[in-house]
C-alpha cells in the first residue's frame, strides 16, 4: 500500500477514535429525566452532532498546536529582547523541555481513547495484510498529535536557523526537536498503556489499590513537572544561567550530560567555535539520547501495533471471596462512585493531583519572599481556587455513558450536584492548609490575611455548584456544546471566585484596612454561597 493511501485511510480510523472519545461523553447530554423541567430531548440529528463534534475536535487540536508553538518560541523571546542573562543554550534547552512536557501532557489526554483496541475495530474486518493494517493504525496514531509536533519542530528549527544562520546548527536542532517529540509521545504512550493495564487488573487487593494511587501520583508528577516548566523563566533559568556561567569545569561537564542541556550546549558550540570537555561530554550524551530516541520510537511503533491488534492485554480474573456490597446512603455512595470513576479514567485522573500542584505552586510563589504579603496570599489563593474549578467539569466528563443508568435511579439532580461540589471543594482545602503552615514559618504582613484562603472555600463551593448547574441547564436542552465546550462554565466559575477577591482589593484600596476588606470579602463569599444554595434548590 502506498503511503499516501494509508495516510488517507487512517483518517477514518482517527475520526472513529475521536468520535469514540466524544461518544463516551455523549452520555452527558442525556441529563434529562430528573423531573418534568429536565426531561431528555431525543430530537437531535446524530449525523449533524457527529460532524460538529469532529469539527470542534479539529479546532481544539489546532488551538493546542498554536499554544505549543507559542510556548516553544517563548524562551527565545528574551534573545530578541536582548536579555543578557539568557543565552542560546538556555533558550534551546528550555524550549525543548517545555514542548516535551506540553506534548506529553496533551498526548496522554488523547491517547487514552487510542488504547482501546476498538479504535481499529473498523479495520480488523477489512481484507488488509498485517503491514498495511499496522501502517494505517500508526498513521491514525500520529494524527492525534501531528499539528502540535510539527508546529513545535518547525518553530524551533526556524528560530535556530534565524538566530545562528548556521546550516549545521539548524540540522542539529531539527534532529533534536524530532527526538524531543519522539520522547514526549513515547512517555505519553507508556503512561496511557500503564493506566490501561492497571484498569484491567481488577480484584480487590490492597496492592492494586496502592498501585492505582501510585499511578495517579505519577500523573500528578507529570502535571507538576509541566507546572514547574512554566515557572522556569522566572525561577530556574536565572539561577541556571548564573550556575552555568560560574560553574567549574566538572559541573559544566555534568550539565552537558543532562537532557536537554546537552542539545543546547552542542548547538551553541557549533556556532561559537567553543571546544572544551563540556562540549565533548554533551556531544556524547546527545548521541546517547539519539540512540534512546531510536529505541523509544521503535518501542512506540511496536506498542501501537500491539494495541491495534488487541494483543498484549492481560485481564486478571480474581475469584471473589464473597459478594458483600455496602449500602452507604446516596451522598457518600455518589461521592465514592465519582472518585472511583474519575480516578480510573486517564483523562480525568490527574485532576486529583491538583491539590499537590496547587500546594507546590504556592510554596514556589512564596519561597522567594521573606514576608507573606497579603497580595501574595490573594494571588496564591485565587490560583488554587481556579485550579479546583476544573474538577466539577472533569467529574461530569467522567460520568460518561454510565449516566444513562444513573438517571434511571431515584435520584434528583441536586443529589448529583452536591457530591461533585463537595469533591471539588475538598481539592481546594490543601491551599489554605499550606498557607497556614507557611504563615507559621514566615510572618504575615497582615495577620488577619490568613483567613483569606479559608474564606475562599465558600466561593469555590459556590462556583462548583454554579458550574454544574449551568452544565445541567444547557445539557437538558440537548446542546452538544455543553458536552464539548466547557469554557463558558469555567469562565463563570472563575468569575465567582474572583468576585470576592476583587471585593477585598476594592475595599482595601478605599479604606486601607485589612479587617474591613476581610469583612467585605466574607460578606460577598457568604452571599455567593447563599445564591448557590438557592440555585441548587431550584429544579
Amino acid at each position, binding site marked *: 500500500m502506498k503511503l499516501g493511501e494509508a495516510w488517507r485511510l487512517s483518517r477514518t480510523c482517527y475520526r472513529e477514535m475521536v468520535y469514540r472519545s466524544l461518544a463516551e461523553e455523549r*452520555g452527558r447530554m442525556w441529563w*434529562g*429525566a*430528573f*423531573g*418534568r423541567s429536565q*426531561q*431528555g430531548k*431525543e*430530537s437531535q440529528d446524530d449525523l449533524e452532532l457527529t460532524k460538529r463534534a469532529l469539527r470542534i475536535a479539529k479546532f481544539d487540536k489546532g488551538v493546542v498546536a498554536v499554544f505549543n508553538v507559542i510556548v516553544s518560541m517563548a524562551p527565545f523571546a528574551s534573545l530578541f529582547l536582548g536579555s543578557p542573562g539568557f543565552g542560546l543554550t538556555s533558550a534551546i534547552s528550555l524550549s525543548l523541555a517545555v514542548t516535551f512536557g506540553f506534548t506529553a501532557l496533551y498526548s496522554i489526554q488523547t491517547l487514552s481513547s487510542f488504547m482501546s483496541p476498538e479504535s481499529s475495530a473498523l479495520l480488523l474486518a477489512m481484507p488488509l495484510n498485517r503491514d498495511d493494517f499496522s501502517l494505517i493504525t500508526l498513521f491514525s496514531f500520529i494524527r492525534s498529535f501531528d499539528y502540535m509536533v510539527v508546529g513545535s519542530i518547525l518553530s524551533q528549527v526556524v528560530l535556530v536557523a534565524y538566530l545562528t544562520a548556521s546550516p549545521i546548527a539548524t540540522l542539529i536542532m531539527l534532529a533534536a526537536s524530532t527526538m524531543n517529540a519522539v520522547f514526549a509521545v513515547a512517555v505519553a504512550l507508556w503512561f496511557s498503556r500503564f493506566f490501561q493495564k492497571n*484498569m*484491567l487488573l*481488577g*480484584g*480487590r487487593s490492597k496492592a492494586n489499590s496502592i498501585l492505582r494511587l501510585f499511578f495517579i501520583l505519577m500523573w500528578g508528577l507529570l502535571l507538576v513537572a509541566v507546572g514547574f516548566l512554566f515557572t522556569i523563566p522566572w525561577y530556574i533559568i536565572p539561577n541556571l544561567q548564573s550556575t552555568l556561567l560560574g560553574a567549574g569545569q566538572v559541573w559544566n561537564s555534568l550539565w552537558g550530560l543532562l537532557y536537554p542541556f546537552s542539545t543546547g550546549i552542542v548547538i551553541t558550540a557549533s556556532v561559537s567555535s567553543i571546544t572544551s570537555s563540556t562540549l565533548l561530554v554533551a556531544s556524547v550524551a546527545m548521541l546517547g539520547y539519539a540512540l534512546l530516541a531510536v529505541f523509544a520510537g521503535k518501542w512506540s511503533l511496536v506498542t501501537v501495533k500491539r494495541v491495534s491488534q488487541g494483543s498484549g492485554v492481560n*485481564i*486478571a*480474573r*480474581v*475469584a*471473589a471471596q*464473597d*459478594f*458483600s*456490597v*455496602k*449500602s*452507604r*446512603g*446516596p451522598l*457518600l*455512595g*455518589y461521592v*465514592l*462512585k465519582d472518585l*472511583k*470513576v474519575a480516578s*480510573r*479514567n486517564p483523562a480525568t485522573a490527574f485532576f486529583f493531583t491538583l491539590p499537590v500542584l496547587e500546594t507546590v505552586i504556592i510554596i514556589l510563589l512564596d519561597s522567594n519572599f521573606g514576608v507573606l504579603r497579603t497580595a501574595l496570599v490573594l494571588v496564591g489563593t485565587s490560583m488554587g481556587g481556579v485550579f479546583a474549578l476544573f474538577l466539577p467539569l472533569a467529574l461530569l466528563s467522567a460520568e*460518561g*455513558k*454510565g449516566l*444513562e*443508568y*444513573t*438517571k*434511571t*435511579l*431515584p*435520584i*434528583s439532580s441536586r*443529589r448529583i450536584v452536591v457530591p461533585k461540589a463537595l469533591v471539588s471543594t475538598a481539592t481546594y482545602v490543601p491551599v489554605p492548609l499550606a498557607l497556614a503552615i507557611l504563615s507559621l514559618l514566615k510572618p504575615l504582613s497582615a495577620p488577619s490575611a490568613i483567613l483569606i484562603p479559608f474564606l475562599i472555600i465558600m466561593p469555590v463551593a459556590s462556583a462548583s455548584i454554579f458550574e454544574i448547574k449551568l452544565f445541567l441547564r444547557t445539557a437538558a436542552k440537548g446542546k452538544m456544546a455543553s458536552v464539548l465546550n466547557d469554557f463558558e462554565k469555567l469562565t463563570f466559575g472563575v468569575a465567582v471566585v474572583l468576585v470576592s477577591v476583587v471585593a477585598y482589593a476594592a475595599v482595601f484600596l478605599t479604606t486601607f484596612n485589612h479587617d474591613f476588606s476581610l469583612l467585605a470579602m466574607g460578606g460577598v463569599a457568604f452571599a455567593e454561597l447563599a445564591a448557590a444554595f438557592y440555585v441548587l434548590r431550584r429544579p
Partner: protein
Amino acid sequence: MSDVGLQRKSGSVSEPLIETSGLTKQFGSFYALSDVNLRVMPGEIYGLLGPNGAGKTTTIKTILGLLEPTSGWIKVVGLDPAKYPIEVKSKIGYVAENPIIYDSLSPRDFLDFVSSIRKTDSIATNELVARLANAFDMAQYFDSPIATLSLGMKQKVALIASFIHQPPVLLLDEPLNGLDAKSSRIVKELVGFHAQKGGAVLFSTHIMEVAQQVCTRIGIIYQGKLIAEGTLDQLRGKTQGGGTLEEVFLRLTNEEDEVAETMRMLREAFFKNEAR
C-alpha cells in the same frame, strides 16, 4: 424476597401497577408511539412484543420517565412519573436493552453505588446479591472492571441491580440479550417468582418463543401502535388461524404475505448462480 405487591403505598392489589392511556410520543414528525393504552396488573408478566423499531423501548423509557410523552398519561403504582420521578423510579427495577453501566467500576462497586442510591437494607441486600451472583456464576467477575465483561455478564450485573431493592415493578427491555441458556432460564424463573409475589413485569422482547414461555399476557406493538393484546389463546382467537405465536404475530401485523414474498426473492437471488 419480600412480598413486593404489598409494599405499595398507594393502590390496592386489584389496581394496575402500570397503566398508560392514550400514550403518544412524537419525535419531530415521526410517531414513535401512538395512542398506546396498556395496564399491567399485580402478578402479571406483560410481554411487549414487536419487531425492531416498533416502539417497545420508547414505551418503557416513557413509563420510566426518561422521555416525556407528547400526549396521554402514565401511572406507575398510581403515580405520574413526570410529577413524581423519584418515587416512581424507587418502585421500578429496570434493565436496558444494552446494559450501559460504568465501565471502570467492578460489579461490586456498581452494586455498592446502586444500593447506596436506593438506600437498601444492607443485610437483605447482601443476602439477595449473594444468591443472585452465585446463581449467575459471577465469582470470577465480581471484582473485574465492567469494561472487561462480556455482554451477557454485563446483563447479569444489570439484572442483579434491578432486583436489589425488591421493587413492585420490573421494566425489562430485552433482558435475555447475550445470556447463556442457564442464565436465561434463571431469569425467566426469577421473573415468575416476582409475579407470584404480586409484582408486575413489563417484558419487552422480539423473540416469540420467549414471550410464549414467560408472559401471562402479550401486547403486540407495531409501528408505535398496540395492535392487539391478550393471552396467547386470545390472540390466536383474534386471527382465527391458531398456530404458534410467530404465526399469530405475522398475521396480526399483516406481514405473512410480505415475508413469503421476501423469502421467495431471497431464494431466487441466493441460488441464482447455481441455476446458471
